[in-house]
């Protein structure tokens, strides 16, 4: 019995193996040809400007510097291009009720940018550079710059205590001043 079954079992097993091999080959071939397809559409380059803490101060008759807090901000490069970008800031001369005061405080705002850190969930390693403290005025100043191949994904700029300095001239007029800071994000020019 043992000697009769052994060659038969062997032959049957071999036959099944051959048939199975024929069955597996096309399956394997099919698996190799099946690609996961899909398109990742380009997103946008966006930014969120920081909120700047207002302050109250008393004129003293001599020029004084007041420092105030700059809130958190962020920039997101979801374009997938790796082209880089820049963030610039300009500021209007402080005015009282929308009117430039007799003795204003033009060209007296100095912003110290904080460093960018990758947001949670952004694996990019090289972020945008931040500039040294910049004087703000009608002509914008670059506060952050991502060279080509850097700065992809979302990057956060931490809030900075006393990061905006405002020089109040000794002869400034009293009043409720306001200044508009414009934060512009743009890809590099081609």
């Amino acid at each position: 019995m043992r000697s009769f079954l052994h060659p038969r079992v062997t032959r049957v097993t071999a036959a099944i193996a051959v048939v199975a091999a024929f069955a597996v080959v096309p399956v394997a071939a099919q698996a190799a040809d099946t690609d996961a397809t899909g398109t990742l559409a380009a997103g946008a380059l966006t930014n969120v400007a920081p909120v700047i803490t207002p302050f109250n101060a008393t004129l003293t008759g001599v020029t004084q510097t007041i420092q105030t807090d700059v809130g958190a901000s962020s920039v997101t490069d979801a374009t997938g291009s790796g082209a880089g970008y820049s963030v610039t800031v300009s500021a209007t001369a402080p005015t009282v009720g929308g009117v430039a005061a007799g003795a204003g405080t033009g060209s007296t705002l100095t912003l110290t940018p904080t460093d960018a850190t990758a947001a949670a969930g952004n694996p990019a390693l090289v972020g945008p550079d931040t500039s040294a403290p910049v004087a703000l005025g009608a002509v914008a100043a670059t506060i952050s710059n991502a060279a080509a191949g850097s700065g992809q994904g979302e990057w956060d700029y931490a809030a900075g205590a006393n990061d905006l300095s405002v020089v109040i001239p000794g002869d400034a007029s009293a009043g409720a001043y306001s200044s508009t800071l414009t934060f512009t994000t743009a890809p590099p020019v081609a």
Partner: protein
Amino acid sequence: MTHLRRRAGTSAVLAGLTIAAFAAASASAATPTAPAPAPKPAGPTFSVTPVGSSGALLLHGTPGRVLHGAVRVHNTTGHTITVVLRRADVRNASNGNADYDTSSGSGTGGWLRLATTDVRLAPRASRDVAFTATVPTTATGASHYAGIVAVDAKDLASAAGKGGKKRSFSFNRVTRQALPLTIRLPGPLTRSLALRSAAINVQPVGAGLILNLLPGGTELIQSATIRLRVTRGSTVVLRSTAGLGQLFPGEPLAYRIPWRGKPTKGSYQVSGVITPRGAAPISINQQVTFTPAKAAALKQATPALPGTAASSSMPMWVWIALAAGAAGLLALLITVWKLARRPLRPVA
């Protein structure tokens, strides 16, 4: 006798508390205050991207032709918004890169016409906005730079509020997205950079060395590095290494290097090199003079005392008042404690 001691103790405590209260009151009255901490800003409300390309816009043409393009504006919020589009001239930001100026339209930005400038968008909706660029027949040079700037109308309205009933020194913020546009005409592409002058200038924030630069040629310079030092005799008074972003031809740039400390009257020697990418380097070797008039202006303009932090610092006299109040309170508490510990004598 016990009654008298108790009265003395109570009076001492009241006096101490009064002193402390006066000290605290004067401190709070003199401190520059921050009315409210800055809240965390909300996310972006919109995005703007080129149609048919990514990143920057690039159009090729010839003088006299009308070029066509489009941008896509997208509402990223769950409510209806209006995005304002503006054409912009490109000038150099103070440390390089494009500064998008929407005020005049006297440059290449004036060639642009947008199909619409106010784009009202339903939640999560997008809209394509066409534009044309009419190249003047007199246009020369191979490259011309402009931009299309997008702003949330709500930001603009808030900034135009003129302060309203605000009682503090306040700041409006405007978030802009810009798309640069290059219009390329036939002609050779060249780059150059010139240093027109160097000078020490005085601002309320202090003195600084100003380098007046003028990019030339027919194409932008991608970046530049500045390495220089300022000496008086054999003493190096200022050393600076800095990088500049993109520089646009025909647009002047006044790059300011803050002076550490205060310059004194007399001449300084500035030496170093400016290396623009793709253009000839510039050697700097010239004198700058800090005149008596500038020294007087600096003395008038800059603060005599170090900066005051609006959020935390207080004038020195306030600290002295607080310390005096605390010392008085401590002395009175010790007196009360000693009186309380003294053994009671029977009344005769």
